[in-house]
C-alpha cells in the first residue's frame, strides 16, 4: 500500500508541476513572446493606431521664489485618420473633420483624393485637435474615420530662451529626438523608453531582474530644472529686441549669470524664433550663437589683461607709463580710440579711459609666455557649459612670436572667443579671481521623484583676490566717472563695468573701418556680486562706440535686477538727512 501511496503522490506532484509549467509557458508567450503585440492592441483600445504615444521629460524655468514654470512640456490632443476602404461618405466625413479640426490645411479636393486611395487602410488627415473637438468627433462614430490620442512637444514660452531650450525633431533618424540646445544636450535624460505602462513583474523577471530591483532607467530619466528665471529672461529678450531694432544690428545677445555659482539666470539672442512653429525657420537660426559663434570683443578684454599683470606682479595699480597715443609694433600701427596721447598716467586710466596703448604696454610687461599662459587659462579649454556644439576660441596669434598679436589681444583684437567663454573669464574678476562653470541646468528631477542636484563645483583660480579687487575698482570708476559723464552712477550700488568696441573683420582680411562689434560687461554689487552681465550687438548702424548703444540697455537691466531681487545697497547710504555718497561700504 505504501508503494501505491507513493505512486499517487508522484502522480499528483507531476500533475501540479505540469499545470504550473503550463501556466509559466503561457505567461511567457503572452508577456514576452507576444508582449509587444498585446501592448499594441492595448494602445489601439486606448490611444492611437500609430504605435506608441510620444513621451518626453519636461524642462522647467525656475522663478526667483523657486516656482517651476514649464519651458518645454507635452500637449495632448487628437489626430484624425481615415480608412478609405471603409469610408462611406467622404463629403460628410470631410465636413465633420473640418468642423472639428478648424485649423487643418487639408482642402476638400485633397481629402476626396485621399479618400479615393482604396488600397490603403490608414491615412492621417488632421493633427493636434483640441481635446473637446477630438472627443466630439470621436462620439460621432463616422464609419471609416478614426480619432486617436496624440501628444506633441509644446513650449509655453514660445520664443523665450528658444536657442537655449532647443528643439525636438526627427533629424536624420525616424524617432523624435532633441536636435539643439538642452533638448539635445540632455537627450538621455529627457527621452522616454515608452513601455513603462506595460511593465510587469513576470516579464521583467525573465528579461532583466537587475532592473526590477534598481531600475537604471529610473535613475537616468527625468525632467530638467534650469536656472533660467523667466521674468529676467523676458526682460533681457525685450531689451535686446529694442536695442537691435533701434540700431538695425545684425544680431544682439546677452547673458546674465551668478558669478559665484555659474548659474545662468538669462541667456538670449535676438533675433529668436517661435519654437512651436518651425515651419518657416531658416535652420541656421536654430544654432545658439552664444556658445557657437566667436567674436573679437574689443576693450572688455582689457580688465582681463590688467588683472593678469597685477596677479603676475609685473605692475601695481600705482604703476605709471607714458601714453604716446599711437605706437608701431611689427610695422603695424596701434592707436588709442581717439589717437590722442595722455602722457604719464597710472594703470587705472587704462581701464577708465579704455586706452589701447596702455593695454599693449601692460601685455609687454607680462611677456609673451605669461600672457599666453593666462589667456590659455581663460579661453584655451571648454567652458563646461551644458549646451551642445561649443566652439573653440581662436587664439592662433598667441602661438606666434610677433609681438603685435599680444599687443592687440590685450585690448580684445586678433583673438576671438564665444560670449560664454568671455563671460566665464570676466566672471573671475567678480568672483575673487576664480572662474566657475557656467551652466543652465541646476538639477534633474528623476522619475522616482528624487531631485538630483548637478555638480557644477569645479573652480579654476586664475587671479589673486587682490588682483581681481584692484581691477574691479578700476571698473567701478568707469561707471561712476565715465558712463554718461558720470550720470549713470548709482549712489547706493557699486557697479563695475567696461565697454568694448571692435572693428569687424572683413572677408578678405583686415578690418572694416566703419563697421563695429559692440560689447559691454558689468557686475554688481561690485565687491560681492550677485549678477554679471555680458551684452553685445553686432554691426549696429550709425554708431561707433559701445557706450552709445549698450549703456542704456545695461543700466536698465541693472536697475531691473536690483528692484526685482531687492538687492540691498552696498555703499553710499545717506546719513540721516544727508545726501548719498559714492564710496563702497563693503571691503
Amino acid at each position: 500500500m505504501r508503494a501505491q501511496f507513493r505512486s499517487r503522490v508522484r502522480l499528483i506532484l507531476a500533475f501540479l508541476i505540469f499545470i504550473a509549467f503550463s501556466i509559466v509557458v503561457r505567461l511567457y508567450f503572452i508577456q514576452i513572446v507576444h508582449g509587444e503585440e498585446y501592448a499594441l492592441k492595448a494602445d489601439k483600445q486606448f490611444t492611437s493606431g500609430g504605435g506608441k504615444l510620444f513621451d518626453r521629460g519636461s524642462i522647467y524655468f525656475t522663478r526667483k521664489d523657486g516656482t517651476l514654470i514649464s519651458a518645454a512640456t507635452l500637449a495632448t490632443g487628437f489626430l484624425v485618420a481615415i480608412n478609405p476602404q471603409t469610408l462611406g461618405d467622404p463629403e460628410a466625413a470631410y465636413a465633420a473633420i473640418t468642423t472639428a479640426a478648424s485649423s487643418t490645411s487639408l482642402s476638400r479636393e485633397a481629402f476626396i483624393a485621399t479618400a479615393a486611395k482604396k488600397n490603403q487602410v490608414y491615412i492621417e488627415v488632421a493633427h493636434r485637435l483640441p481635446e473637446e473637438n477630438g472627443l466630439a468627433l470621436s462620439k460621432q462614430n463616422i464609419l471609416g474615420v478614426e480619432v486617436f490620442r496624440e501628444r506633441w512637444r509644446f513650449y509655453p514660452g514660445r520664443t523665450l530662451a528658444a536657442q537655449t531650450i532647443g528643439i525636438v525633431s526627427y533629424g536624420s533618424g525616424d524617432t523624435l529626438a532633441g536636435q539643439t540646445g538642452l533638448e539635445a544636450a540632455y537627450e538621455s535624460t529627457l527621452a522616454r523608453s515608452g513601455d513603462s505602462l506595460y511593465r510587469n513583474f513576470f516579464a521583467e523577471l525573465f528579461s532583466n531582474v537587475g532592473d526590477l530591483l534598481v531600475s537604471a532607467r529610473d535613475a537616468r530619466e527625468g525632467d530638467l530644472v534650469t536656472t533660467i528665471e523667466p521674468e529676467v529672461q523676458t526682460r533681457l529678450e525685450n531689451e535686446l529686441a529694442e536695442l537691435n531694432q533701434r540700431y538695425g544690428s545684425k544680431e544682439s545677445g546677452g547673458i546674465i549669470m551668478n558669478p559665484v555659482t555659474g548659474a545662468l539666470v538669462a541667456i538670449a539672442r535676438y533675433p529668436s524664433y517661435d519654437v512651436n512653429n518651425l515651419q518657416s525657420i531658416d535652420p541656421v537660426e536654430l544654432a545658439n550663437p552664444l556658445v557657437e559663434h566667436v567674436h573679437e570683443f574689443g576693450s572688455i578684454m582689457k580688465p582681463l589683461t590688467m588683472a593678469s599683470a597685477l596677479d603676475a606682479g609685473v605692475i601695481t595699480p600705482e604703476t605709471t607709463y607714458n601714453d604716446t597715443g599711437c605706437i608701431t609694433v611689427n610695422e603695424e600701427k596701434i592707436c588709442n580710440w581717439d589717437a590722442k596721447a595722455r602722457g604719464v598716467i597710472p594703470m587705472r586710466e587704462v581701464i577708465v579711459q579704455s586706452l589701447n596703448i596702455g593695454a599693449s604696454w601692460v601685455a609687454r610687461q607680462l611677456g609673451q609666455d605669461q600672457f599666453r599662459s593666462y589667456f590659455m587659462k581663460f579661453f584655451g579649454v571648454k567652458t563646461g557649459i551644458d549646451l551642445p556644439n561649443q566652439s573653440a576660441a581662436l587664439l592662433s596669434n598667441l602661438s606666434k612670436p610677433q609681438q603685435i598679436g599680444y599687443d592687440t589681444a590685450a585690448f580684445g583684437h586678433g583673438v576671438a572667443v564665444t560670449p560664454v567663454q568671455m563671460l566665464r573669464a570676466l566672471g573671475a574678476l567678480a568672483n575673487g579671481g576664480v572662474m566657475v562653470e557656467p551652466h543652465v541646468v541646476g538639477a534633474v528631477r528623476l522619475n522616482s521623484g528624487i531631485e538630483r542636484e548637478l555638480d557644477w563645483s569645479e573652480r579654476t583660480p586664475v587671479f589673486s583676490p587682490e588682483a581681481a579687487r584692484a581691477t574691479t575698482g578700476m571698473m567701478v570708476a568707469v561707471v561712476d566717472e565715465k558712463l554718461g559723464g558720470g550720470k549713470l552712477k548709482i549712489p547706493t550700488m557699486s557697479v563695475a563695468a567696461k565697454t568694448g568696441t571692435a572693428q569687424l573683420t572683413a572677408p578678405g582680411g583686415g578690418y572694416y573701418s566703419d563697421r563695429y562689434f559692440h560689447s559691454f560687461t558689468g557686475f554688481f554689487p561690485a565687491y560681492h556680486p550677485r549678477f554679471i552681465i555680458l551684452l553685445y550687438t553686432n554691426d549696429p548702424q550709425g554708431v561707433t562706440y559701445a557706450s552709445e548703444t549698450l549703456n542704456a540697455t545695461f543700466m536698465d537691466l541693472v536697475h531691473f535686477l536690483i528692484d526685482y531681487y531687492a538687492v540691498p545697497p552696498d555703499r553710499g547710504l545717506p546719513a540721516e538727512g544727508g545726501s548719498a555718497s559714492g564710496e563702497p561700504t563693503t571691503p
Partner: protein
Amino acid sequence: MYNLFSRLPFSFLSLVCAAAGILFVAYIGLIAVVMSYAALTVEFSQSARNDEAAVAVLESQYLANVARITGTDYAADGYVKPVSTLYVRAQSVTALR
C-alpha cells in the same frame, strides 16, 4: 498516512481536479487583475497628461502676460521719468508691530 487518505470522503482524482480548477480560476483572475490594472494605469496616465497639458496652457498665458507687461511702453501711456532721484535710508522696523 494510508489510513488518513483512506478515510477522506473524496478520491485523489477529485483532489487533483479541484486543485486544477482552483489554479485555473486563479489564472483567469490574475489575467483579469492585470488587464484591469493596465487599463487603469493607461487611464490615470492619460488623465495626468491632460492635466499637465492644461497647466501648460496656463503657464503659456502667464509667460505671455509677463512678456506683455515687460513690453509695456510706459512713456506711451503718459508716464514720465522722475526729474531727480533721491536715495534715503530705509526706516528701521521692529520685528513686532
